[in-house]
């Protein structure tokens, strides 16, 4: 498989097949990322198309300081934020919310209502997606980039334009909340 760098060189010289190779390599993760920002698949496809067009227009300015994937994701996040309407559905959440509902601890801070063992009966990938979609916007962005797309914390900071500490706080809140949602779905009957 050709490296991103080789494909970019060929794309700059006007090779359509290089563009198609990049499209086949990156459109799936871009669609998934876009879908976490905007309300429908149709809008996600528009955002992804706009991102590819932005790539073509900006290709001479790409200096390779970040990976192509990080660069594409950063363009996409900016496109999605200007297009996105999903965020209006979610209420802003304070970054100080606890990882676990305080009512589950006793006065001394020990578990009163401990975490339930999960009963996984085959994984429901749609349900997992629905749980992720239920996260507040900023937490969802970080969780999707880190844990779905597998970016490093440095790459997530570059894509979203946030500090490392902020990234870690959002990741913590997002993963903690997601654990609770999975417990609600997969935990033994409460």
């Amino acid at each position, binding site marked *: 498989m050709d490296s991103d760098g080789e494909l970019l060189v060929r794309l700059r010289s006007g090779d359509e097949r290089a563009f198609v190779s990049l499209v086949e390599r990156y*459109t799936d993760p871009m669609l998934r990322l876009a879908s976490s920002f905007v309300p429908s698949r149709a809008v996600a496809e528009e955002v992804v198309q706009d991102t590819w067009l932005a790539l073509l227009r900006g290709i001479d300015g790409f200096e390779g300081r970040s990976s192509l994937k990080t660069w594409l994701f950063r363009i996409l996040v900016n496109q999605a934020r200007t297009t996105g309407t999903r965020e209006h559905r979610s209420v802003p959440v304070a970054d100080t919310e606890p990882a676990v509902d305080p009512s589950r601890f006793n006065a001394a801070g020990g578990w009163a209502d401990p975490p339930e063992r999960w009963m996984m009966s085959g994984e429901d990938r749609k349900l*997992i997606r629905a749980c992720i979609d239920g996260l507040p916007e900023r937490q969802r962005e970080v969780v999707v980039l880190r844990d779905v797309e597998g970016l490093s914390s440095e790459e997530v900071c570059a894509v979203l334009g946030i500090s490392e500490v902020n990234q*870690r706080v959002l990741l913590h809140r997002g993963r903690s909340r997601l654990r609770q949602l999975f417990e609600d779905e997969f935990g033994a009957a409460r």
Partner: protein
Amino acid sequence: MRLLRTRDLVCQQAVELVTDYLEGRLRKAERRRFEAHLAVCPHCTEYLAQLRETITLTGRAEPEDLTPQMRDDLVQLYRQWKAGEQ
């Protein structure tokens, strides 16, 4: 019975350290306190295991697929862009 020292973590504090622990961002002393707590607390051990499982499950979220239609649209987009360039 061992007396609770003020340096000992309680569960409610331990769950707030899980991400920093997994990210390798706890200072050495903090990490020792956290691990000492896990050693005596099956519930927090379960909680940490669930956080790891959460990360694994998240990675298996339903993917989106590039449809042939969209692929064709993107090739059209490229050709239009290229025609406009020249």
